[in-house]
């Protein structure tokens, strides 16, 4: 199991290249699949915890009240949070309603409630999103496919190192009969950032 002999004078980059060439040569992996996986992990990992939190809030009014009061302790009730970012003092959950739509951004960098939402999508870090979310959120949302009626107020929440925000989306209509597990499957990352409204899906 000891591997001390390996990295003597070889550069790990060359060694990795050799491993990849061997694996590709043996037909065990395709380089394109490797590209895709790196991209997926960098952009897409794990909003599942957040989805579970949302589904719980939809089905358990007392939990929802606690969640909106103070996010982290409520999330720990579900067994999440022990591994979460110790630097984040607070997680604030903002509830969407018929009259209020919340949107999360980090104008300074790319602070993100990754403990519940996983890795941020690439666009979240883009200068365009960061500036336009504040300057013209309604137009930005429309471009992202979310047309809000003029009587819906848009509230933009700017994340920081100390406070991270997450949106509690509205429960889609026609989902009354669904349990927590099925509801969890309906909740998308984008809806918890606030750039998407959940629809009932077939």
């Amino acid at each position, binding site marked *: 199991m000891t591997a001390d002999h390996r990295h003597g004078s070889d550069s790990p980059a060359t060694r990795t290249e050799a491993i*990849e060439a061997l694996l590709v040569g043996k037909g065990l992996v395709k380089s394109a699949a490797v590209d895709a996986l790196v991209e997926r*992990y960098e952009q897409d990992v794990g909003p599942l915890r957040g989805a579970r939190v949302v589904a719980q809030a939809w089905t358990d009014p007392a939990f929802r009240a606690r969640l909106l009061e103070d996010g982290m302790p409520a999330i720990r009730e579900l067994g999440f949070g022990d591994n979460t970012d110790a630097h984040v003092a607070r997680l604030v959950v903002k509830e969407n309603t018929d009259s209020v739509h919340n949107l999360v951004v980090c104008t300074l960098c790319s*602070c993100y409630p990754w403990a519940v939402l996983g890795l941020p999508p690439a666009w979240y870090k883009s200068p365009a999103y960061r500036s336009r979310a504040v300057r013209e959120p309604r137009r930005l949302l429309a471009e992202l496919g979310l047309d809000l009626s003029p009587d819906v107020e848009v509230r933009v929440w700017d994340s920081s190192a100390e406070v991270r925000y997450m949106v509690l989306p509205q429960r889609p209509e026609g989902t009354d009969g669904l349990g927590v597990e099925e509801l969890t499957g309906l909740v998308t990352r984008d809806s918890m950032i606030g750039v998407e409204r959940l629809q009932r899906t077939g």
Partner: protein
Amino acid sequence: MNLPVRLDEDGAAAPPRENGELAFSAPWESRLFGLTMALVEVGRLDWEAFRGRLIGGIAAWEATARDEEWSYWLRWQEALEDSLEAAGLVAAPEIDRLTGQFAARPHGHDHRHDRDHHHEHSMENDE
């Protein structure tokens, strides 16, 4: 959302992160990561067994005083090599040999365009 495994977020086996994102400091690190995940995805590598080797390797490294600078991704590389060897997929001498060949390639603008030098990883026909 169809990722092969859930990565550790805490503890010795957790990959380095920055603001929640995986932190790679060199291209080979993300390449190594992607290779591993690709193998897991197609069922060629058992994630839990790999993870166990990674944790063991990190613990062994930490238990030994050395001058070598800490590198999470080097431990990952060792764990992957051990896993590949244990699974009978790639033997260490094969890796050593090809690494030596690659290391001996001429570099820079004066390299020869011979068959051993590809800018992309397309060594399928190189035996």
